[in-house]
């Protein structure tokens, strides 16, 4: 069996680094992994997505529709953009943070009745697809770690709590230390721990998790 994780977010949030850390950790753990990464236009603020497939039964770099076990979304709006990939009753691991695209904001000033999409709206819609939704306040946790740019590592902490995520924690920690800038290793490891703890307060009430040591 393979574990399929569809990761999405906004350019600049560190999706590719997150993928690299997980992939390197898989290599250390001796686990097969394949990814398909979508970026290319280098600018910030565009939609970015990664197909991450762990386990020996995954062939294609792209997850077939309806076969993602987890939809990991570093920005709340983006969650709804890729639902065709998520299994019915799959897990949504979603950031509380919304980064409103300029086009949405410019609509707000030209149309008086127009409103921003909210996290509540998104969760409400998502419930038509799955009940397994965890909303993570990753920016607050990242700031708590001492570096607001570690949201991606907070989510890695959340993932590592899951029973289905078989990559060894030791390998993930090592992989974080090798991939992030030296000055930020401590902050990233802290962000990882904060993410893991937060999962035990939310996600783990919905799906099987590894016990905390």
């Amino acid at each position: 069996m393979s574990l399929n994780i569809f990761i999405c977010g906004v350019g600049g949030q560190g999706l590719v680094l997150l993928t690299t850390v997980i992939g390197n950790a898989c290599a250390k753990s001796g686990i097969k992994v394949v990814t398909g990464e979508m970026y290319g236009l280098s600018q910030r603020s565009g939609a970015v997505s990664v197909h991450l497939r762990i386990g020996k039964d995954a062939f294609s770099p792209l997850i077939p529709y309806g076969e993602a076990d987890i939809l990991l979304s570093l920005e709340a709006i983006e969650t709804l953009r890729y639902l065709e990939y998520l299994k019915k009753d799959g897990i949504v691991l979603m950031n509380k943070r919304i980064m409103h695209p300029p086009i949405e904001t410019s609509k707000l000033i030209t149309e008086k009745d127009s409103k921003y999409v909210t996290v509540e709206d998104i969760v409400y819609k998502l419930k038509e697809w799955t009940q397994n939704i965890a909303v993570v306040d990753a920016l607050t946790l990242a700031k708590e770690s001492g570096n607001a740019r570690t949201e991606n590592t907070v989510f890695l902490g959340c993932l590592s709590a899951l029973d289905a995520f078989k990559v060894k924690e030791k390998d993930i920690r090592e992989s974080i230390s090798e991939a992030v800038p030296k000055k930020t290793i401590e902050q990233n490891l802290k962000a990882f721990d904060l993410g893991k703890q937060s999962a035990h307060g939310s996600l783990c009430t919905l799906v099987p998790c590894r016990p905390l040591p």
Partner: protein
Amino acid sequence: MVLKDILSKEKKAAFMLGNEAIVRGALEADVKVVAFYPGAPTSEVLDTFSDALSNFDYQMEITTNEKVALEVCAGAAFAGVRSLTAMKSVGTNVASDTLFVLGYTGVKGGLVIVMADDPHAHSSQSEQDGRFFGPNAYIPMLEPSSPQEAKDMVKKAFEISERHRVPVIIRTVTRVNHQSGIVQIGELNRGEFKKVKWKELNEEYTTLGEVARRKKLKMLERTAKLAEEFDQSEFNFTKQADSDVGIVTSSVSYLHVLEALRMLKLQNKVNLLKLGTTYPLPKNTIKNFIKNLKKVVVVEELSPYLEKELCGIAKEANPDLAIFGKKTGDFSEAWEYNPNVAAKGIASALGLEYTVTEAMVEEAKKFKETIPARYPTFCAGCPHRGTFVALNQALKIQVAKGQEHYFSNDIGCYSMWIYPPISRGDSSLCMGASVGVANGLSHVIEERAVAVVGDSTFFHAAIPALVNAVHNGNKFTMLILDNSVTAMTGQQYNPSTEFTAGGRQGKKISIEGICKAIGVEFVEVVDSYDVKGNVEVFRKALDYDGLAVVVCRRECALYGDRNKRRRGEKIVPFYVDKDVCKRPYVCLRTFYCPAYELDEDRQPRISPELCDGCSVCSRLCPIQSVKRTEVKA
């Protein structure tokens, strides 16, 4: 990947991006000269070679364009030295003049050309199928499906290149370049870099007229030999099953097919031929595969390249064979494939039930309708945003005065001007074409043409068109947006900076110096952030009765921020002072910066995490409500 995997001397398993695996394969083959112009999806080949440069003795250039890159490699290969270049699909068009001739002249040292097509036009202007370069230029072509194959094929390509004295194309697609996976890396035994005595080699690489005719015959002989050799290649393999149905595929489509067969519960129930050498095709391998089959399904992205060849081979080997693919309507020539597209096509060809694709996509559609689109846009702090705000204001004033315009855009971050909420642009074709097109327009339209190019695009392909404009006295306005680096592909160095590959010292070349030297009489240089001042300069350039060039200079925000972080400088964000702001929304209406949003009271606020501190919005605010955050000492 981490750099240490690229540098590792030992065999091991490493997690690598397709592009990184290409670099590792070349290093294992002891490549000595590499040259590139960046282009998605190949840019990480350049970046990885650049990051690793200080650890090795290879020569590396970030060249002005793909043609020059290929020529740098050809020069090395003529002297018997192994070389590699990588380019995106449309970059091959630029290099093709040289490519076709190399088929005739041949090479001595191994020359490998990585050519990355971009089905779906993720980051390109077209879905060009570069496989036709192989047969058209008589240059052998290998197609990997995964990072592992990419590494293995690059290494092997050097041997093939030297054995047959011909360059070898490694043809990839975005989903191979940007696919990561576990790669078994081999040993790294690097030889010492040594200069060669040309006279002692006794080589010649000319071709013209009678010489070309002679070399054409040799080229045909070489291709026949390669076809025979490829019949034995480990890169073509079959998976046999007890069935009279077969699937022929190559590239990443092979991986989609494996997934599709699992989804259709056809694993080990149909025969499979995976082709890795797609020019010249291994005809005997294909003949043997199809001779006892009743049906064959061809799964390949873009043009029916394999399908047409297969039809020809089947005419001889198995005339009754039913061939399914694009001609039968089971697959499309448009857009990239995925496991679902492969499953749907195979099911349709074989008369099986498969409905997942439409059902899932259709169901998910109604969720997407509730969220705003997220178009690519200029980063917070991007100098282009300031340039375009000023240009828009200048154009508006000119229109009021009775002068209208044609907006000729080009390839770079500034291409994004075509996306909402701006949606401006009359044409954008390919590298440098904005200036070429403006030449022609200046003869035939009543409006004033405005051409826009970046610094890297200027050096790449715009200079000949500009020389042409001066020589012929053509009248238009040209903006050169100089942000110091080739920003869109990942901020690589170009002649606009004093750096080159690996951060080494290079000679900086003056854009305005070139313009003046070739005789442009109106040349102004401005700071892209000075919006108010630039409106006037742009107006002058639009009014000028002749060719007017404005160089808009300010470094790329991502490049600048990275440099600031390296120097330990803080990026200080701005904020909107609520007590001052009267909400005229000038910031939002004109500037569209992604760092801006509205709070619950519809009060503009700046996200401190996203703000780059560029200050341009504060200069635009008519009531000075945007202020720099005070930093405690």
